[in-house]
């Protein structure tokens, strides 16, 4: 289905330490000592993660380990939650996303997110994809149409909706809605696209097509994929990060992590002893 990792990856899995440094050098998004509290409860502890550019990085771990919270830190959606507090740094293109003077809504455009349940807006298919573009001030119909077509093609949805762009997006199937939401997210050209268990609402056939789509997207975008499905992580991703109880336990080349985990916790999780 996809080329073997070891022959393609620029980061051979032989030396874990060197691997990390190389990953950091080409990282689209990095965190340094990232901590998150909801009120008095600490959800994330000292996360140091480098998400390599134009690769698929999977985040795995048991439920409630902080995977989704981590995603929401990276585009500052946690800012909307009262009582949330963030420590450490999120580096996007080398600049701290939490520095003073960062315009939050511009940051969010650069870090797109697709949620677990597809959340199309109650607008037409066309207007769903146009939403982010219009926020950027794009008004000319021809320009909009071109960008919308490109986004829908990239999300492998164009052929199915090309002749009904003016129909409500709520009438699409769940799988189509999920691809529409992806088209909406990539229409504004984010630097990183985060997907929070995007396939959990899809049936197996749609999941398979969805994973193929992820590979195509990875040619152009940096993908960060939260999944609770370890097979999926193993199938799809180039790198995998294992989280447990708010900590990043292990991060490595996917093949290396699944075949030769360095941490006992990781081994227990991927062999199904808990989680």
């Amino acid at each position, binding site marked *: 289905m996809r080329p073997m990792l070891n022959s393609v990856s620029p980061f051979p899995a032989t030396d874990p330490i060197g691997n990390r440094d190389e990953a950091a050098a080409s990282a689209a998004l990095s965190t340094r000592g990232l901590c998150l509290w909801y009120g008095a409860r600490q959800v994330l502890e000292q996360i140091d993660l480098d998400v390599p550019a134009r690769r698929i990085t999977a985040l795995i771990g048991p439920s409630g380990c902080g995977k989704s919270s981590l995603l929401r830190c990276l*585009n500052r*959606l946690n800012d*909307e939650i*009262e009582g949330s507090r963030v420590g450490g740094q999120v580096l996007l293109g080398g600049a701290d996303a939490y520095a003073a003077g960062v315009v939050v*809504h*511009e940051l*969010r*455009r650069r870090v*797109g*997110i697709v*949620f677990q*349940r597809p*959340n199309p*807006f*109650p*607008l037409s298919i066309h207007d769903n994809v146009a*939403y*982010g573009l*219009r*926020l*950027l001030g794009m008004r000319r119909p021809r320009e909009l149409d071109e960008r919308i077509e490109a986004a829908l093609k990239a999300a492998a949805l164009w052929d199915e909706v090309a002749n009904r762009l003016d129909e*409500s997006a*709520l*009438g699409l199937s769940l799988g189509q809605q999920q691809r529409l*939401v992806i088209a*909406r*997210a990539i229409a*504004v050209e984010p630097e990183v696209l985060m997907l929070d268990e995007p396939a959990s609402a899809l049936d197996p056939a749609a999941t398979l097509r969805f994973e193929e789509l992820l590979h195509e997207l990875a040619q152009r975008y940096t993908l960060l994929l939260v999944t609770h499905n370890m097979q999926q992580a193993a199938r799809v991703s180039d790198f995998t990060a294992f989280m447990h109880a708010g900590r990043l336990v292990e991060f490595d080349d996917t093949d290396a992590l699944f075949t030769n985990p360095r941490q006992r916790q990781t081994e227990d999780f991927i062999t199904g002893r808990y989680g």
Partner: protein
Amino acid sequence: MMRARAGAGGTWLLGGIAAACIAIMLGLLAFTLGSGLASLWPTRVERIELRGGEILFGEVVESDADSLILRGSEVERIGEGYRRLRRADIATRNAPPDAVVVQLGDGRRRFGAADMEVSLAAPAADGVAEVLRPNAMGPFARTGVFLRNLFAFVATPPDASNLAGGVLPALVGTVTLVLLMSVLVMPFGIATAVYLHERRGPGMRIARGAIDTLAGVPAIVYGVLGLGLFVHGIGGGVDRWFHADRLPVPTFGSGGLLWAALTLALLTLPVVVVSVEQGLARMPASLRAGSLALGATREETMWRLLLPAARPAVLTGLVLAIARAAGSVAPLMLVGMVKLAPASPLDGAFPYLHPSRQFMHLGFAVYDAALASSDVIRGVPRAYACAMLLVCVVIALNLSAILLRNRLRDRYRALEP
């Protein structure tokens, strides 16, 4: 839960109560419509010969066991032709087919036999509106007269006594007032609801409580507020600043359409706020998160996504506001509603809408015809007719808003939880 425990008997009871409610509502509608329309139906002209030899023509408007009331010719002024006749005094009573009713332009009616037609009309030859022989008419001709009466009622102005003529200015006043009120209340209501939705904290709890309380304040209190705040306060200020040359004749400093519309807007603000806020609260959190994630600010999310998606709730608020506003008459008496307005607030002269002018209202026409009229026997059926028209106006306004809302609701159905 209650139904399950109450069993079949309970279901019947609840069903019966619901049916009774519907029956009462339909009965009210039917009664208003029936009484209102009946007053426009052509009545028959009777010829009554008394034992003394006197011959009378007229309409029998009321009767009981031993007497009846006849409306005879009104020679000088409207409402003067009534006579109570004891049945014992009546020698013969019939409805000759050639009996004539002459309808004068000011609402007076004269009755007589066919050969009297010329003399009946003569004193007011220029004011003759119609000469009818109702007794000779078949059902179709009567229906024709009825439809003509209905049209005249809806489409002509009243005479000075508000006993005859139509109610066009009151109809125009009512509709204009409600529409102007809607235009005023919606932006304020939506803005307030958005603010309450976006802000949280103890202050907002108090604000919300205050709005709920406002919904329960009696309407007349709003009238006093409107008089003090809008008419005397703002209106007086506007006059001092912009129309000082015409003082002491007030321009905006007396009751008028604008102040009445503002008063009604204040009255209906709570229902709009509550309805819109509930609509916003029903929006799934994922919509908001999705919009923010695309780089929208909170304001952009509200105005471009949440509020448009909550349009059905906004229109529900509008429906409730119209229903409340169209039925409120009491506060209007203080802020510019009059029995007879010298000029319509809506006319063909630029700027077409004259918000400072006094206006007439169907609700007040009901009251005036029923209780303040110099001719009770004419007034009460007229009150029914006005009430019927008012009900029709409210239904028509509501229906258009509801149809609009249902169209939008179909589009957003999949969003409903």
